[in-house]
């Protein structure tokens, strides 16, 4: 019987040669007459080990990584790869990075064939939708509310309350919209689910549709994710074929592709974009739950929120709500990124400290230098210095320090980082991506960038810092959406926690 060999097809694995490795394995085993079946999976999220090749054995899977195409000949030198090979990492489940996690949303990611519904079902898939149907719509909404699930896009709004609002609003047509416009640097959780466990999202959206009485769903995926778009579209076709979507299921699903606008991750801007317009934000109210896509009641949720619903329904709200701290219930897929030694996806209950995440789990920096600044929550998230490493990963704790956990991205910088430059970038990024609707964001970001340039050149540093601080107040309180409203977080945290980077005599001398 052919031995199954698992090679990820996740974009991050392909980016470091997984396709070449899979091709080399196919060729080498054919040449040697070793019977294998190559299964392309998603990624487990241990990116420093990618491409991580796994071989099925009677004792479970054994991992090898990072494997390059040139390693394949030695891996199969004596038949199937042996545990004695230098690249062997043992059973993946025993790797501390994976062993310490609580995988609920990502339980199947990296393990199953993403496009096999049989695999999905064999690993516990579809239990959530079945339970929802047995509970009925109202009890399904109640279950999501009881779980304490909050929006994983960053705003942290209780998902169940959003659903209830839509369920209670009468309309001839309602929509479920999945926000898969994952634009925050340092995040890739949505991408991993779409590429590694797409039926999970389909199931989550089908549950949402059933719960609120919506018959049509859209998945808005950013164009920077061509792999995710391909897999997701294919998964929808397969689900239609099995009657999970379509007329019989009374729920249709469609992928829509973004066009490179970061602001379309903001929910009202995303809805405008779906309607075929410029991605400009809408003033709220009306809430999308009342008047959303094409003016109809719309559930618009982050992908991870929707992908967490099946597990909540399958295993019960209490099971999920038992995890976490304070008002942050359940688990969060923390995405270690940037200059992290062990960069990857770490799903855990809320409450780990930032220091534990960066140092214990991430192993410090890839460069081996001390970690100096950590940006949490994407380009609109604050930069944290080492002295705040005891901050617990929790919506309220981060908000209390003028920061946010956002979509769970944690970008590590070593001590070569220039925080004045990072503050400038935050403003420049806001200027590039501003939708232009409100003045503080459209103009303020440009003036802020210019003022930061003056500070970096050493021109009237104190006065210009005061100006930037004042401008940030205007942005924070005068912007329509989080793009302008939160850009002050990275800027002000950099100024407050790393003042030494904003007044450098050397730079001043050079400018004079």
């Amino acid at each position, binding site marked *: 019987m052919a031995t199954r060999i698992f090679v990820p097809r996740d*974009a*991050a694995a*392909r*980016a*470091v040669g997984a396709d070449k490795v899979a091709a080399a394995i196919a060729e080498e085993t054919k040449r040697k007459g070793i019977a294998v079946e190559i299964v392309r999976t998603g990624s487990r999220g241990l*990116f*420093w080990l*990618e491409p991580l090749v796994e071989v099925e054995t009677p004792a479970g899977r054994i991992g090898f990584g990072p494997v390059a195409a040139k390693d394949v000949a030695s891996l199969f030198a004596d038949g199937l790869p042996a545990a004695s090979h230098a690249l062997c990492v043992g059973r993946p489940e025993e790797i501390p990075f994976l062993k310490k996690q609580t995988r609920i949303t990502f339980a199947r990611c990296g393990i199953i064939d993403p496009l096999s519904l049989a695999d999905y079902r064999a690993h516990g898939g579809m239990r959530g939708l079945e339970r929802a149907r047995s509970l009925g719509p109202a009890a399904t909404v109640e279950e999501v509310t009881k779980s304490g699930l909050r929006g994983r896009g960053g705003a942290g709004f209780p998902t169940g309350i959003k659903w209830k609002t839509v369920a209670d609003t009468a309309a001839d047509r309602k929509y479920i919209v999945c926000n898969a416009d*994952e*634009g*925050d*640097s*340092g*995040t*890739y959780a*949505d*991408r991993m689910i779409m590429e590694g466990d797409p039926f999970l999202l389909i199931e989550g959206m089908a549950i949402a549709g059933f719960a609120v009485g919506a018959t049509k769903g859209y998945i808005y995926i950013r*164009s*920077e*994710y*061509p792999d995710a778009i391909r897999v997701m579209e294919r998964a929808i076709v397969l689900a239609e074929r099995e009657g999970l979507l379509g007329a019989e299921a009374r729920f249709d699903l469609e992928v*829509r*592709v*973004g*066009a*490179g*606008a*970061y602001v379309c991750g903001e929910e009202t801007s995303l809805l405008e*974009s*779906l*309607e*075929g*317009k*410029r*991605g*400009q934000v809408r003033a709220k109210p009306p809430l999308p739950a009342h008047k959303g896509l*094409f003016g109809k009641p719309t559930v618009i949720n982050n992908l991870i929120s929707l992908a967490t619903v099946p597990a909540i329904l399958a295993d019960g709200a209490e099971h999920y709500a038992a995890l976490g701290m304070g008002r942050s219930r359940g688990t969060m897929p923390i*995405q*270690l*990124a*940037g*200059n*992290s030694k062990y*960069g*990857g996806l770490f799903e855990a209950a809320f409450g780990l400290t930032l220091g534990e995440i960066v140092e214990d789990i991430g192993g410090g920096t*890839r460069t081996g230098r001390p970690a100096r600044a950590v*940006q949490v929550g994407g*380009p609109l998230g604050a930069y944290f210095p080492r002295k705040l490493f005891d901050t617990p990963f929790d919506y309220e704790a981060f908000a209390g320090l003028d920061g946010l956990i956002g979509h769970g*991205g944690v*970008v*590590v*910088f*070593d001590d070569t*980082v220039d925080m004045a430059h*990072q503050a400038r*970038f935050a403003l420049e*990024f806001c200027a*590039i*991506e501003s*939708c232009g609707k409100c003045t503080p964001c459209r103009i303020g970001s440009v003036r802020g960038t210019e003022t930061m340039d003056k500070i970096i050149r050493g021109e009237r540093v104190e006065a210009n810092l005061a100006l930037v601080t004042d401008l940030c107040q205007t942005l924070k309180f005068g912007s329509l959406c989080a793009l302008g409203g939160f850009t002050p977080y990275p800027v002000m945290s950099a100024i407050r926690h790393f003042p030494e980077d904003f007044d450098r005599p050397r730079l001043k001398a050079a400018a004079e």
Partner: protein
Amino acid sequence: MAVVRPVAILEHLNMPAWSEAQGNDIIRRHAGREGALLPILHDMQATFGHVPTPAVPVIAEALNLTRAEVHGVVSFYHDFRDKPAGRHVLKLCRAEACQSVNGERLARQFLDRFGVEWGGTTPDGRLTIEATYCLGLCASGPSAMLDGEVIGRLTKDSIDDIAREVG
């Protein structure tokens, strides 16, 4: 090096010049879809390599929009081009996660090597280099995308590899 005219680049790309019949075919494929404008624009760009200016009034007519509205959408989104790119398109990530692993310095070396600035195309029409803000490969940076294919853990050697590939 002679500057290649856009038409020559198009031939090189093996992409057809604008034809109203073909444009109408694309529009027809999306007939009846809700919010069809973005899917139509994506298809126009996939077919012609850009959104040709003469396509704007045709789309506007079909969707019962004004030309200004269609132009407004085309120009709002970073993805849509009003003229064709080079034969190959390299997108380099400039976002924070890639900055933290020296992505900016490496990006500068790429630009210098090919003698272009951000958004520029080499005079022979071979390569366009564009900035992108995150490809979702944030633990494997610096990262890039060449003609839709992702590349991670870029090093100085990657510049030579990519130069060979687009050669």
